């Protein structure tokens, strides 16, 4: 079995097109436990040379890409025909690759005021086809943005004229609007990917005239890398926590030696580089990435800087956890993982000191160690350029994740101080809101269904289509649960799917985010579900439990609420609650609102 790092090392020594083709030929034999991602590529130009580049760049991210190509120029057909072969492939992502200067080369001869409706018509057809496709397929559709010709006969007047460039820009706006309102449509920044390597390196007119291939090999590699960010995101490899050193990472200099007034941080030169980096980090926190500190320093030296230095952009409350001590950083990372309840494989480690990076690389291979450049002015771009945090959805819960971790730490302190567990629960002033799933809740509900492992009674991973069927079905109901307490909002953190059959109401799926466990919220949920069942005339409430490797926290749920086991199958347990004999009541320390 060929080693992935050997394949990539040999490729990177001389990354020609043939080398990519050779590396791609080895892919069927690599480690089959690497996650597989099924993708379809629909091209408005010849995409053959691009395919091995995508396969190899996906491997670089630890993903095996299973790629199917649509026929040249058959994009709308592939999207609109339900029996087209790309549907049989069941792609997770469909890429639509376009190059208007190739497609509309004949329009270069048209001056301002000529008929550019072919471009508008093409764009309307494409937008309709994409939108319709997402209604019958679970795939994410990633559509290339559109390159305008670098130069046209209009020259410097092009940008103020109503000609080809303007019509392509109109098309770009329409695609952007589609992506904004359809949560499964996204835009691939082909234009950005190619400009990063320089148009002269990315475009080859000889290849265009000879084969209708607009790009060079270098252009294909740049585009493939951009495409693979979407594979990373769809496979759920998004990293969750960024662990940061302080000295020479968040500011210039060493605070223990230079004192708080001596550190380099401000609006000039190198100080500005560090301030900008802090702004980038704060921006990442806004998307749900947790920030943590791991620094060889003393508390009393560092905390005044974090609290009071006027140029700091990041403040103590921006960090979800800290280890400021003189211990080994690998040990500190293990402790941070424990404290935050995250796996080390969700960590990214950023430290200016190559020895610390090497230590972590060797001791903790699952941690992603960022290769921070030597020059602080280059820090921001290097982190933004990395793929670690790419994601396909951004929900309100994601954006507030960092706040919620802060609230959780405060709950922990309150728990330690309370006299009894019930006193603690009363002191939280818990409010639970349970109701039907609205359109704005849908993305989050589907996200929970897909990723909740521990408190998940039946671990049914409904697809979006299946979930919509449960929502609209006459014999099923889907509820979502939100919790808030004195310390903050936990957001949408619970889902229940009920199925009604004669006098029985079955809880087909019940799951709660592990974030809200240990506060008797599940009792409030069951109380609500009893009432919902009775409202539809059910006389019994059935709970199902299917044990998995991860869901033992849920195994006593039904037993501890007075359900009775009615079958002999330990892998698919059936628990029954007699609604005629009684009901489950909501705990007195939880206020239920709807």
């Amino acid at each position, binding site marked *: 079995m060929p080693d992935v790092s050997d394949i990539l090392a040999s490729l990177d020594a001389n990354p020609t*097109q*043939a080398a990519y083709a*050779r590396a791609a030929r080895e892919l069927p034999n690599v480690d089959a436990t690497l996650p597989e991602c099924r993708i379809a590529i629909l091209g408005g130009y010849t995409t053959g040379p691009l395919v091995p580049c995508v396969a190899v760049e996906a491997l670089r991210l630890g993903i095996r890409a299973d790629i199917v190509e649509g026929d040249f120029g058959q994009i709308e057909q592939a999207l609109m025909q339900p029996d087209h072969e790309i549907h049989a492939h069941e792609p997770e992502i469909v890429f639509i690759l376009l190059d208007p200067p190739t497609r509309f080369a004949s329009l270069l001869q048209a001056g301002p005021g000529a008929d550019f409706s072919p471009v508008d018509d093409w764009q309307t057809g494409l937008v309709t086809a994409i939108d319709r496709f997402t209604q019958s397929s679970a795939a994410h559709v990633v559509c290339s943005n559109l390159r305008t010709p670098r130069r046209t006969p209009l020259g410097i007047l092009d940008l103020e004229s109503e000609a080809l460039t303007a019509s392509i820009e109109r098309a770009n706006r329409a695609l952007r609007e589609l992506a904004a309102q359809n949560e499964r449509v996204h835009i691939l920044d082909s234009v950005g990917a190619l400009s990063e390597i320089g148009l002269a390196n990315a475009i080859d007119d*000889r290849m265009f005239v*000879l*084969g209708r291939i607009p790009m060079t*090999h270098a252009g294909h590699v740049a585009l493939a890398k951009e495409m693979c960010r979407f594979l990373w995101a769809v496979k759920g490899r998004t990293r969750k926590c960024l662990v940061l050193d302080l000295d020479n990472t968040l500011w210039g200099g060493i605070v223990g030696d230079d004192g708080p007034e001596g550190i380099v941080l401000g609006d000039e030169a190198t100080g500005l580089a560090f301030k900008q980096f802090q702004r980038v980090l704060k921006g990442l926190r806004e998307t749900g990435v947790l920030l943590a500190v791991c620094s060889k320093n003393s508390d009393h030296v560092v905390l005044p800087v974090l609290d009071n230095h006027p140029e700091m952009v990041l403040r103590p409350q921006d960090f979800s956890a800290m280890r400021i001590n003189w211990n080994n950083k690998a040990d500190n990372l293990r402790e941070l993982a424990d404290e935050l309840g995250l796996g080390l494989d969700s960590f990214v480690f950023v430290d200016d000191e190559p020895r610390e990076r090497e230590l972590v690389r060797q001791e903790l291979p699952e941690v992603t160690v960022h290769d921070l450049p030597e020059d602080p002015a280059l820090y921001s771009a290097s982190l933004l350029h990395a793929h670690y945090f790419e994601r396909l959805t951004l929900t309100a819960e994601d954006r507030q994740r960092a706040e919620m971790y802060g609230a959780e730490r405060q709950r922990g302190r309150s728990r330690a101080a309370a006299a009894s567990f019930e006193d603690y629960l009363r002191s939280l002033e818990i409010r639970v809101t349970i109701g039907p799933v609205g359109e704005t809740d849908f993305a989050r509900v589907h996200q929970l269904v897909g990723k909740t492992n521990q408190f998940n009674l039946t671990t049914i991973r409904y697809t979006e289509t299946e979930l919509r069927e449960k929502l609209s079905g006459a014999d099923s109901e889907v509820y979502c649960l939100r919790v808030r307490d004195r310390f903050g909002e936990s957001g949408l953190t619970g889902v229940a799917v009920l199925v009604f059959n004669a006098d029985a109401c079955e809880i087909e799926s019940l799951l709660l985010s592990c974030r809200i466990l240990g506060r008797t919220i599940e009792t409030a949920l069951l109380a609500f579900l009893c009432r919902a069942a009775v409202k539809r005339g059910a006389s019994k409430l059935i709970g199902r439990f299917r044990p998995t490797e991860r869901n033992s926290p849920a195994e006593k749920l039904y037993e501890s609420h007075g359900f009775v086991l009615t079958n002999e199958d330990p892998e698919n347990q059936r628990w029954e609650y007699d609604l005629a004999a009684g009901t489950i009541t909501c705990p007195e320390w939880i206020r239920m609102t709807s």
Partner: protein
Amino acid sequence: MTDTSTPLLRIFQDIFGYTSAELPDTVSPDDVEGWDSMQHLTLAQEIEAAFGVRLTTDDILAMTSVGEIRRIIASRMNTNC
């Protein structure tokens, strides 16, 4: 005349999985599986990278056999110095 044999043979091995140890001038697309119009463009770009030459569109169209390829590489290498 520069010996183009070994680097050219290696390119044929990489792109087409060419197994023979010899690459005679007479070899053409008819003799090599996978040498289609698209792989022909890959071949042209590999030759440019390996020999440090720049081929014109007409050069690429004229590469109808290994012998023609050798002739074109040689002429471009002489013009490029």
